[in-house]
């Protein structure tokens, strides 16, 4: 039973979803949740948002499945939903300040667990890279992610973000000079 779903093509699964088969949609999520999460994480840059936005992407896709056009790859369609969701969210989002926990005292007994080496090791370069990407304005971060990580062409980016190709070019160029400055110690002088 499970096998049938695992072996079915995306198009077959979507046809099943359209006829009310929820398992088929579950299989589609199994296939693409990882990629969508990675995309959304590179745009949102934190797990809480990436978690929420990737879930929301599938919820919207499920509701809109009737309008899905089979001439596109399913992933392309999902990808588009995710990017737009993210950009809208990030533009609306105000930085949330940390709220101290009730009854929390400074300097508890857990200080020693904070050793970053005990978790997954993140190199200094990765931390600086992450910080630099966080500093980019949302518009610039989006074009960098879509171009460099998702390997989309200028016209594809222009299409997804609904901006002229000229704007894609100038944003990319600005994003690169900004990153170039922020990460100069890791790059050829």
């Amino acid at each position: 039973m499970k096998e049938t779903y695992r072996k079915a093509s995306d198009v077959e699964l979507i046809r099943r979803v359209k006829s009310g088969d929820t398992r088929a949609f579950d299989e589609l999520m199994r296939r693409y949740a990882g990629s969508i999460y990675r995309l959304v994480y590179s745009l949102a840059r934190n797990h809480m948002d990436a978690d929420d936005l990737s879930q929301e992407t599938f919820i919207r896709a499920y509701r809109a499945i009737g309008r899905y056009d089979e001439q596109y790859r399913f992933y392309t369609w999902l990808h588009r939903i995710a990017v737009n969701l993210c950009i809208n969210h990030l533009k609306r989002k105000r930085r949330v300040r940390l709220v101290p926990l009730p009854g929390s005292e400074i300097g508890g007994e857990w200080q020693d667990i904070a050793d970053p080496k005990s978790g997954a090791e993140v190199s200094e370069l990765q931390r600086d890279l992450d910080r630099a990407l966080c500093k980019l304005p949302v518009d610039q971060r989006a074009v960098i992610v879509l171009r460099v990580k998702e390997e989309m062409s200028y016209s594809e980016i222009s299409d997804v973000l609904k901006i002229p190709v000229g704007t894609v070019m100038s944003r990319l160029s600005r994003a690169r000079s900004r990153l170039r400055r922020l990460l100069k110690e890791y790059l050829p002088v």
Partner: protein
Amino acid sequence: MKESCKETRRLLSQYVDGELEFSLAARVEAHLKVCPDCRRELAALKALGQMVKEKDKPPKLADEYWDWHRSQVWKRIKTVRRERQDGPHRQGFFWFRLAAVTGGVAVVLIAAVAGWRLLRVNPQKAKAPKVVDNLAAVLVSEQCDKPPEVLRMPVLPCVSIDDTTTVLLRALVETDSSVSEIKVERSSGIELLDSIAVNNIQKAKFRPGIQKGRLVRCWLTVPQKFRSE
């Protein structure tokens, strides 16, 4: 900077992407042949692209996370569908009141039906963290006259993450104010953080919930926020 260098720098980003029209690309190449400064700049932009592509990675997530992720999607799809179906007649509210009147029996039934439907829709039942609570056994804080309270909570360590991260936990606070069960309602996606959060709750002090003047066992939702260092 020379005029030809300025022109090259302006086009370099497009050149790296291979999106420059042929005649302009030829001009850039001609300039690069004679200008070591611009060649270095080109190398830097290429290295930058490589770096973003290869070194920028999301956190590694546990396998259970993805089962949980899918079950959350279904849960949210259903919640909205139910709200829509209820419409102006507020059928849900009626059921809620009926459940309140008939007490435990109805709650057990609803929980069972919800659990069964969740199982039916998801080919793979979500493993830990659990999503469906055994509502019949105890109250949740919203149902309490006086929900349990956090009296003392040890401070969480600062961790090397770049954003505030929250783990949402549910703690079953017993009538003797001990905590008998802790569930991860919403994982941070990082196992280490989740376990630190759970440990923290074990060290916390609670006051039990009160219903009609009596102490009751009650689930309490407790967020644990990690600050970046």
